[in-house]
Structure formats: C-alpha cells, structure tokens
C-alpha cells in the first residue's frame, strides 16, 4: 500500500508564539502535545484534517543550549528564518513495520533502532518508529526529502485527531490539498517509490524541500508558506 502523508514538522524558536501565529493568521487551531523523549524539545500539534497534522517543536530547556550536541539542526535554521520557523520535515505513514522495513532496506538503511516517544500532557504517551536510518543513509529532513513512520497500534489516538484548544473564529480543517516541493517530480518519485501525485505534490524546481502546505477548510483554501529546511 502506498504511504500517505502523516505530519509536517515545523522547527521553531518558540513553540508558543509559532502556534499562536498560525492560529491567529490562518484560524487553524492547535493543542499542546507535551514533550519529546529528548526532553529538551516541546511540542504543539496543529491538526489539518484527513489524518494529517503540523508538528511544531522548539527547544524548551535552556540547559540544552550548553551542550551543542543537543541542539537540533533545525533550531539554528529556524532562528535565521523571517518567521522564526521553517518547514523542517515531511513525514509519511505506513501501516505496518514490514512496510517500514522494506522502505528502509530500499534506501540502504534500517528502521531507527530507538522508537520515538512523546509524553502527552494527559499522560498516555505516543510511540513511533521511523525510517530510513543508518550510517549510510542521508538525513532525509535535512536534505529536503520525506521520511516514513509507523505508529504503535494506537491510530485511534493519532495526533491529527485530537481536539484543539477552542478559540474564536476557528475554521473547520478538511485535509491537505497540495504540497509545494522543491526538486523535480522524477527525483521525488525515485525517492518515494510511488508517484508524487498520490501525495498531491507540486514542484517548483528549487532546491529539494517543502515550501508550502495548502489546507482545505470550510472557509476556502489556506496556504501556509515558510522557509524550507534546505534554503
């Protein structure tokens, strides 16, 4: 089965103001997603409908900055961006670990040996595996390419399906209508192993990476543009 769009990572300098800006500007709600297993990164989620969400993350532990190895690469890029936030990762989803393993193998890597974990404010954690990983595999996000995820068998609590904080004037989100990507359709098809049309990708010919996300809403289409990780 072809992979589907799962989430889009937005690296930010301040997870609070970035989420607030999105809600104020586009009238798309968000909620607090807790903190990641690295514990130095805080998380907010912006459901987009259709099983997709934006994952906003920023460093929230000042003592992490004293150890440069704990600074995510996207953090420095986010600081330099005009909106203090970038599109840092595009994340696809497959349903089984077997599919994830096949994708990892096709890219000359393995499934990430450690599952990712996030502790939600209401307690139950979420757990997921990603691919491809390994010493011979390029960092997909950093090079503007999608990677793949498989969630623990808890899709019923998928981040895209959780309630947002009520706020005045929020739109009803109905899914992602298209993604503006750098590179070419052929480059992306070779990486994905499936036709980019299945993910509603458009190509602008710039360097690889994500440039814009269009969201269907009951009030019309909303286009969210941010600097790409590769710019």
């Amino acid at each position, binding site marked *: 089965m072809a992979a589907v769009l799962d989430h889009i990572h937005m690296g930010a300098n301040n997870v*609070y103001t970035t989420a607030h800006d999105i809600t104020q500007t586009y009238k798309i709600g968000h909620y607090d997603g807790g903190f990641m297993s690295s514990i130095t990164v*805080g998380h907010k989620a912006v459901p987009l409908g259709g099983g997709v969400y934006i994952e906003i993350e920023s460093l929230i532990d000042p003592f992490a900055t004293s150890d440069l190895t704990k600074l995510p690469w996207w953090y420095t890029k986010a600081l330099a961006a005009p909106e203090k936030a970038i599109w840092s990762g595009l994340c696809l989803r497959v349903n089984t670990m077997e599919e994830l393993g096949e994708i990892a193998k096709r890219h000359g890597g393995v499934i990430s040996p450690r599952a990712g974990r996030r502790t939600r404010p209401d307690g139950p954690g979420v757990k997921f595996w990603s691919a491809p990983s390994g010493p011979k595999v390029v960092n997909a996000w950093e090079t503007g390419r999608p990677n793949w995820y498989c969630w623990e068998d808890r899709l019923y609590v998928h981040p895209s399906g959780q309630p947002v904080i009520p706020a005045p004037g929020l739109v009803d989100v109905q899914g992602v209508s298209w993604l503006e990507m750098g590179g070419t359709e052929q480059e992306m098809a070779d990486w994905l192993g499936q036709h980019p049309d299945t993910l509603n990708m458009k190509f602008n010919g710039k360097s690889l990476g994500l440039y814009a996300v269009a969201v269907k809403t009951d009030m019309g289409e909303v286009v969210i543009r941010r600097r790409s990780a590769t710019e």
Partner: protein
Amino acid sequence: MGLHIDHLSLASPNIFRSADALCKEAGLGYWTGEWIRDTAVHIVPLGPPGNFIEISGFVDVHTLKNMDEHKQWILDITETGDHFNGLCLGVDSMEELEQFAAHWKTKVNPFNNPDPAAHFQRANGYILPMASTPSGKRSVWMKGLPNVYYYPDRTHHSSGQPTHPCEGMVRPTGIKWVEVGGTEEELSTWLGVPNVGSVLPLKFNGKSLGVWAVCVGAEEHDDIVIRRPAASDAVPVSKFAD
C-alpha cells in the same frame, strides 16, 4: 476575601517535564498554553477560593543570548532543578492594591497596558488582565518576598481553567498552608500587615526567605504536601541587597 494567597511560582528548567512529574507525584492536573514573551507557564489549579501553582520557565532559549539579571537569576535557581521562586498574594480591589503600592512607595503595574506582550496570553487568544505591585526593575521575588495582584475579571482566573486529565487525578480543595522562610515579624514588616500569620495560612521555618512547601487538601485523599527548595536556597537573597 481581603488579602489572600493567590498563587505560587515554581521555577523550572523544563516546564513540560516538571508539570508531568508533579502530576504523577501528587495527582494534581495542570493546563498548558499560557505564556509571556520568552516564558511560559503550566498551571496547576489547587482549588477554592482560587489558588494555583504556576510552573514557569523559558520556552524561547535564544533570548538567553541577551542576558540580564532576572534571566540569570532564573537560570541560577533552576540549574539544580525546580525551586519555588514566588509567593503571590491577592486583593479584591484596585484600591487595596494601591494601598500596598503606597506602603512600598512604588507604583502599580497596570492591568490595561495596551501592549499584548506585556500580559500573559493564552492559546485561545485570551489576554489576561492582571495588575500587580510593587513595580520596579528588580522583582521582589529575588529577595524572597511576596508581591500582590489584583484581577479585574476573576471569571478567567488561572485557577479555574480545565486541566488535562491525568491518571490518579485528585480533586484539590485549596491551600491549607504554605511554609515560608524567615519570621512572621519580617513578613509583617514587608507587607505592613501586623501578625500576618493570622491573616494568611503561613508557617515560618526560619530558613532563608521564600516558599519551601505548600500543603493542599484533596477530596477523599490525604493532604498533599509539595516540597521544593526556595529560590534563596540556590541564590542567597543577600545578592540582591543593594
């Protein structure tokens, strides 16, 4: 209510982790999504008549490139973990707040400052109107002393907002007592309130100034005592004596 305890500030190196840990330790739920500039708070409501702990910490660590005395103080007191760093009293009217300002020969920080960045903002767009005193370049919290607040609209008070559900959650029934450093005489002199220990539910432990513990009642549950060192235990108040 007259002069009362409104909230306690708990400075944290990582508010997400500290709120999660306190929730698991004490069964007290919390809500998220309130911030001011580079700092955010996770709020732990403690029950009537409207008390809460605000777990506060930096969420925009880049601002630490431009260090100032207050930021350095927060870093210094959180380097070794959570510390209580503020006792926040409340009054019921602007007139009462102005009396405290007059006692301290200072001004009131107004609740209607037109700059949104001067206020706590919430994820739903609400901007929290809140007046306080004393006003000054240096927070009195750094000296281990309380300040006083007035909320013109208590219907949106932080203690009354819904929390995330958590396992083993209790229903808090309010503060029973707060353990503070110093003596009753010292605090009475600071506030200009004689015998303040008979006005506020305080216990004095004679240690360095600041909050050392809070006891919270809970329905069908033993009292909950949350004990953390006072900020003055990490950074002596004498550092800010000038």
